[in-house]
Structures are given as structure tokens and as C-alpha cells.
């Protein structure tokens, strides 16, 4: 089943690299413009559950990497999904300066909170997202907090330690 899917992917898209690291997963690395087509391709073949969208900050290579985890919710037993749970990991790299990416909501509707979280914590702007407002955070940050050049200790000293105790005010 996995090999069948690997062959289909490699024959349909070019400039894509597919690896099978184990029994239950496929890792696909593609370029940013191909991502939505690959997601639609996988969804048509029975992989209809977007488990998570995550992001990694490769500061030395000056790029951000988006990771999509897609699996078949109920193992459909068709020729692509098979009987065991197979997870497809889809990775892509985008440049770190003013990052932009098209939203995955037309394909998977439940991508909305994940993209909001990645927007507030990494700074990637998703074009076409209907509600790109913060999910967890309350304050404004110039550098998004999860990037590797955000110094948490400096931020704490600057913002929270400067607030005086009530007895010391005069």
C-alpha cells in the first residue's frame, strides 16, 4: 500500500522526494507551490484527516519549514490506505523574511486554528484566511515568540520586571 502511494506520488509530481522511514509513515518533501495540490491529491485518495500543521525554525539555513500531518481517519481498506494507520508527513520550506503562504482551508476546513496559532507564534501570514487573530496570546510582540532569535529573558526583564511593586511606588 505504501509503495503504491509512493509510486503514484512520484509519477504525478516532479521535484518531489518521497521516503518511507518505517511501516506506518511516508515523508514527502515538496516545494511551496505544490503543497495545496498534493493535499488535494491525498484527500481524494482517502486521506481525509488533517491531524496537525506545525512549523520549525531553521535559523542557520534562513528558512521556516511547515509540516502537515495527514492520515486516514478510519482505515478505509482501499488500495492507498490499507489496514494499518498510515500517516503522511508533508514538509516544505519558505524564506524567513516576511513569510507568506496560501491557506489550506479550501482543502481541509479544520486548518483554521492551527494557522492562527502559527501566525501568532511564528509570524507566517496565511493569505485567504478569514480570521487571522491571535489564539492564545494577549500582548503584542515585535518578533514572534517562537522564533529562535527571540530572547525570552530579555523580554521578561524589559516588560515584566520593570513593573514596580505597589509598596515601592511613591
Amino acid at each position, binding site marked *: 500500500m505504501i509503495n503504491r502511494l509512493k509510486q503514484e506520488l512520484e509519477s504525478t509530481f516532479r521535484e518531489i522526494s518521497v521516503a518511507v522511514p518505517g511501516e506506518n509513515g511516508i515523508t514527502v518533501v515538496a516545494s511551496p507551490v505544490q503543497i495545496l495540490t498534493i493535499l488535494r491529491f491525498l484527500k481524494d485518495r482517502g486521506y481525509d484527516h488533517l491531524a496537525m500543521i506545525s512549523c520549525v525554525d531553521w535559523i542557520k539555513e534562513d528558512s521556516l519549514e511547515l509540516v502537515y500531518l495527514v492520515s486516514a481517519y478510519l482505515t478505509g481498506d482501499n488500495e492507498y490506505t490499507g489496514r494499518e494507520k498510515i500517516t503522511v508527513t508533508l514538509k516544505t520550506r519558505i524564506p524567513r523574511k516576511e513569510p507568506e503562504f496560501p491557506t489550506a482551508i479550501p482543502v481541509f476546513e479544520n486548518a483554521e486554528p492551527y494557522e492562527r496559532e502559527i501566525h501568532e507564534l511564528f509570524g507566517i501570514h496565511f493569505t485567504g484566511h478569514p480570521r487571522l487573530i491571535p489564539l492564545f496570546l*494577549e500582548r503584542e510582540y515585535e518578533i514572534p*515568540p517562537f522564533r529562535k532569535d527571540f530572547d525570552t529573558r530579555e523580554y521578561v526583564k524589559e516588560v515584566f520586571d520593570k513593573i*514596580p511593586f*505597589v509598596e515601592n*511606588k511613591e
Partner: protein
Amino acid sequence: MDRNQIKKWLKSPGKMAHKYSLWAIYFCTGCGIIEIPPVITSRWDAERFGVLPAPSPRQANLFLITGYVSVKTLKAIIKTYEQMPEPKYTVGFGSCPINGGMYWDSYNTIKHLDKYIPVDGWIAGCMPRPEAIFIAVTHLWTLIDKGMAKGYVKYREQYGRYRENQEMALGRLEWPPLFPLKDEND
């Protein structure tokens, strides 16, 4: 009850009644709330001390802030604290309200709770054992007896400074000031 207790009851019944009927508002602030259900149920019975969980802030007079306080939680804590009737007591539970605890260099938690609402006592630990909660309750009784648990009076008298600190941490506040603010340059 011996003669000493009866004399204390007759002299100031309000103070004695506040000691023996502390209703803690059941607001699950952080990760420390996992220590509260064993305390209020059969294992370590807190009802014999008079401590009951109260379902609404208007019925309570003790606020236990258990665990870390993120910026979003601070908003809810201030709103709840301002709804409680006076006199009221606050106890910081765990090491995170004291000085940040485990999250001392985090971008989203406040480090010292004392800057935003007045706190009467602290319990150290991560998390404290239920026996530590009972020792804290008896210490709070001693404080109330001596008249040293005056957090709510401090909040009323220095409300302007507390509100400044709250605005520094949270940005603009949506609710009006609880007590009328004095204008300094009048």
C-alpha cells in the same frame, strides 16, 4: 469551647465567623487545581475547618490562586477578585505566583502576583501537599485574629497604583475602575 473562645466570640463575632467559615471560590487557575479535589472530599476533609467550595464569586471570601498565571488568566482573576464582597482574603498557592516558579523566563506569564492584586499569604511548593493547605488555613486564622490580613483594605486605598500595574501588563482594560481614581494633577 472554653471561656477564652467564648470571650473572643462575644467581643468580635464578625472576625471569629470569618475565620471558621472560609468559602473558597472554585476557580481552577492553573495546574495546582489538581490538589484541590482531594482536599475538599473525603480523604483530607476540609469541611471540618469550615472551608467549602463556593460556586460563585459573590458568595465567597477566599481566593486560592493555584499555579501559574498567564496574561489571559490574569484578566479573569482580576474580574473575579473585584466581584467578591469585602472582606476577602487571597492566598497564593505554589511557587509560580511567588516569583514565577518554573516559568520564570516565559514570555506569557506574570511573575509576581503581588503587583496586580493584593495577596495575604503564600504557600511554597510545586505543588504543595494537602497538609500544607491546612497549615496555611491555620496561619490565615492567626493573621485574621491579629488583624494583619488587610489585603482588601490595601486594594481599596491604593487602587490607582494597582490599576496602573494592571494596565501595564494587559494593555487597555475593558472594565471601568472599581473605586473612583484620584486625579493627581488637579
